């Protein structure tokens, strides 16, 4: 293993896997689990390397008088075997053999396999086809069986066993490395290298090899343990190391028949193999985590059934009422949501208040990253935890704080009183469940309908969202439907239990333009017919203007302006709203110049003090860059967070 670690430190390996992530090696050794693995390996390797200098008995000197001594007996720390040979000495020399054979096998398999994989991917075409067919055939054998066949042909012996293990591991390397290389061969930097006149040899050695190196290192680290186990296995069967030479497997095989009289002869070598393999596997997992975070051994974090919330006293500490909420269905007060990613904390939502009254359509508009989706998902605590956490505020549903509600209470409301329509219907519908069932299960859950009746109602709902031939389509899978049909299914799902509120998060963004119009019309009609309130999230000012009664404009995790659609879009009082409206082309006004907002929206892990828009605002002055900008009311329901609101009079 030390050889592998050394490799990582050489600069030619670094650029690909570790660029932009300095300290990868440090992170590796700082991980306590990996450090433990490294410690095990270090101890074993040091002992084994020092073997010739240690005061050990000769491992092959027999002494029949002293045979089968128990561990800790006179002069033999680990006892003796059936020929009276010192177990400790045999163990250390045996480990030496096993390690050497395992590492050699891993490096040889890596060399041949990786070369095959790189060449197949680099040359493509017939070369690739032929090489891969050979690999396919080798992989068609159960791993160990092919090794046995090769040993059968070559004859038993340590070197032959090693060759067999190398051969059966080559396909694995070839496939993995070919995959990694293929993803590089057609990239732009390869094209650039080709154009700059690099020879094929140069391309492979200096462009491809450094970039697939992390893959090779990972594959070695995950297979070297296997190879040690498998060579030990062949020796155990008597097909590897031949007496008097003994590796760990051979010692085990030797002790197998003595298990009743002298169990230590077989157990101790096995224990060393186990330790060795544990050490290698721990380091291998750590290496993989560092070099390729996507393959993290611990796996990605599990999402919780509901977003985590901060304790009540901390969460409600600074609440002040801002808007009339008496007759509201849902009210958010001082909502703050943080995402913790590594050491960065993103304040995705930084103190948001809004209210939704029955039957009302409320729009939330803003650029990507303004916090509008997170705000909407927070209502029923559907923000993924980790990394999200609701750190402050409350969400009131008919005076009940949903952030305090237990999971089963949330589940009663989700999809029943408050329902969602999400953005991309291809990823938000379960690919393996028929769409009719995906609608019906929601009604079974909340209304307790029997299976058949729920399905009938699902078909009716599908008809009401204008899906032709609904009865047949109900047994289609999502991938069998068009994007527009899938989104109709999502809407039918949301309507299933006649909710009081439908929260639609960019429901048309993933659809083409004509379908968008149809879906919007449908959504609007249905919610009016059923008297449901609508929260409509979009970056599209025009759609909000058409669909909604109220609008909240979000920027940098805050609502910067709020009011009726007529007030806000008719007489915007926040510079950001103005600039947002100026970006929208107007039909029949080709003369009106479209003015994009210069600069980028702020990163929410490094928000400036004061107004988040100040860095992009032409009117900003010193006052905008400090402290909390309080909302200023310019009408009963219309307010904006701007220090220069007086100068912004419509």
């Amino acid at each position, binding site marked *: 293993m030390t050889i592998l670690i050394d490799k990582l430190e050489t600069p030619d390996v670094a650029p690909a896997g570790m660029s932009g992530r300095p300290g990868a090696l440090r992170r590796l050794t700082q991980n306590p689990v990996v450090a433990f693995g490294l410690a095990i390996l270090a101890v074993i390797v040091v002992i084994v390397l020092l073997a010739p200098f240690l005061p050990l008995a000769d491992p092959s000197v027999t002494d029949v008088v002293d045979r089968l001594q128990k561990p800790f007996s006179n002069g033999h720390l680990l006892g003796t075997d059936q020929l009276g040979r010192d177990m400790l000495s045999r163990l250390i020399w045996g480990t030496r053999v096993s390690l050497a054979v395992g590492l050699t096998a891993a490096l040889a398999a890596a060399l041949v396999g990786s070369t095959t994989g790189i060449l197949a991917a680099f040359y493509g075409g017939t070369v690739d086809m032929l090489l891969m067919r050979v690999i*396919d055939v080798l992989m*068609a*054998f*159960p*791993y*160990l*069986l*092919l090794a*046995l*066949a*090769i*040993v*059968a*042909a*070559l004859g*038993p012996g340590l070197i032959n066993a090693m060759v067999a293990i190398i051969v059966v591991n080559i396909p694995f390397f070839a496939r993995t490395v070919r995959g990694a290389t293929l993803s590089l061969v057609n990239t732009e930097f390869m094209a650039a290298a080709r154009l700059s006149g690099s020879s094929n040899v140069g391309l492979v050695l200096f462009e491809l090899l450094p970039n697939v190196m992390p893959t090779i290192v990972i594959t070695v680290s995950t297979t070297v343990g296997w190879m040690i186990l498998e060579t030990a*296995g062949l020796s*155990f*069967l008597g*097909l590897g190391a031949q007496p008097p030479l003994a590796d760990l497997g051979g010692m*085990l095989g030797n002790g*197998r028949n003595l*298990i009743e009289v002298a169990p230590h002869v*077989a*157990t101790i070598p*096995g224990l060393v*193999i*186990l330790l060795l*393999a*544990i050490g*290698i*596997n*721990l380091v291998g997992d750590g290496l993989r985590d560092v070099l390729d975070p996507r393959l993290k*051994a611990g*796996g990605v*974090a*599990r*999402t919780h*059934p*509901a977003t985590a919330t901060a304790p009540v006293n901390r969460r409600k500490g600074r609440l002040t009422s801002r808007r009339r909420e008496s007759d509201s269905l849902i009210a958010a007060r001082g909502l703050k949501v943080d995402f913790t990613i590594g050491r960065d904390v993103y304040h995705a939502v930084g103190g948001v208040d809004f209210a939704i009254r029955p039957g009302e359509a409320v729009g939330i508009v803003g650029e990507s990253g303004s916090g509008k989706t997170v705000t909407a998902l927070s209502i029923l605590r559907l923000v*993924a935890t980790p990394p999200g956490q609701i750190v402050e505020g409350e969400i009131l549903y008919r005076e009940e704080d949903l952030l305090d509600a237990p*999971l089963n209470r949330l589940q*009663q*409301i*989700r*999809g029943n009183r408050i329902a*969602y329509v*999400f953005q*991309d219907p291809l*990823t938000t*519908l*379960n*690919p*393996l*469940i028929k769409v009719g069932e995906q609608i019906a*299960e*929601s009604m079974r*859950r909340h209304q307790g309908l029997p299976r058949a009746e729920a399905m009938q109602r699902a078909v009716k709902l599908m008809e009401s969202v204008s899906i032709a031939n609904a009865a047949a389509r109900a047994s289609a899978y999502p*991938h*069998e439907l068009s994007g527009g049909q899938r989104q109709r299914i999502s809407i039918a799902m949301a309507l299933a239990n006649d909710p009081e509120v439908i929260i639609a998060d960019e429901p048309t963004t993933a659809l083409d333009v004509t379908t968008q119009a149809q879906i919007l019309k449908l959504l609007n009609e249905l919610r009016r017919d059923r008297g449901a309130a609508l929260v409509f999230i979009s970056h599209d000012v025009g759609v909000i203007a058409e669909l909604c009664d109220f609008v909240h404009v979000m920027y940098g995790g805050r609502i910067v302006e709020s009011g009726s659609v007529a007030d806000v879009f008719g007489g915007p009082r926040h510079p950001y709203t103005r600039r947002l409206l100026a970006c929208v082309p107007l039909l029949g006004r080709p003369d009106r110049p479209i003015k994009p907002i210069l600069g980028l929206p702020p990163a929410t892990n490094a928000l400036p003090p004061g107004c988040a828009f100040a860095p992009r605002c032409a009117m900003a002055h010193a006052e905008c860059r400090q402290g909390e900008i309080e909302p200023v009311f310019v009408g009963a329901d219309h307010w904006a967070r701007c220090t220069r609101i007086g100068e912004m009079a419509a």
Partner: protein
Amino acid sequence: MLNYTFHRLLLMAPVLFGVTVVVFLVISLIPGDPAHAILGTFATPENVKELNAALGLDKPLPEQYVIWIGHVLTGDFGRSYVLHRPVIVEIGDRLFPTLLLAGTALVLSSVFGILFGIIAAVRQNGWQDKLITVTVLIGISTPSFWLGILLIFWFGVRLAWLPVGGMVDLFGDGGFADLVRHLILPSFALAAVAGAVLVRLTRGSMLEVLRQDYIRTARAKGLSERSVIYKHAFRNAFINVIPVLGIEAGFVLGGAVYIETVFQWPGIGRMLVQAISTRDILLVQGGVLIIAVAYVFINLVTDLAQSVLDPRIRRK
């Protein structure tokens, strides 16, 4: 579905051909002269030549292959010159015990591997997860032959609860109960390592799936976590697990070689090890070929199973 099956069968043909070529070549390229091996050191050159001609070994390799494959297809794998009986008969006696052992181990490792994988994912970072993760690490690092020996020592010798070998005839006097008692230790030893690999994979796959948008949709519908996990998440995670079940099958078929040796189980694995040490080449050849072909078919079955469970593949 029929189309897909047909397509898969077509793809299998070249692989099967390749497998037979590899098995043929491995044995044909053996250094030394089989005739010498059979006749012993005192054979005269005439005797060797005669036998070579009788065995068809004086012909070019491709011709030898055609003759050999013709015999194989008619069930003639030659004769074991150590056991003095046809290879096919010996394999016939040994096949069922191996399939029984490997099959039991596969079922055990799949059921427990997937179950513990789900538990570890759902309780990520909880004590259950930590316990399972540590057990799995030990599991994948344990040589199965050593585990077998330990099991024999504890349950066979010390506690004397279970028989540790001596399974000679699966359908002998002991009946079914005796068979099960003989099967417990070896199938557990064989299943432990394979199951550990599967726990890791299921856990990773479940965690990945639990982050998907459709899981959020399921939760947004107010479904119970039980339904979210077993109906919505597990189905999707299982799709990724199926191909690995095929690999696991190869793993237990190979691992059976160790376990059969340790527990003296009368299967093909132990037969192969004995045949290799007695240089009984035709027996090795037959045994490897039969298991390899079985493995190709097992992979076909997992492919088809995946297409049955994943409607997206079926359509292609």
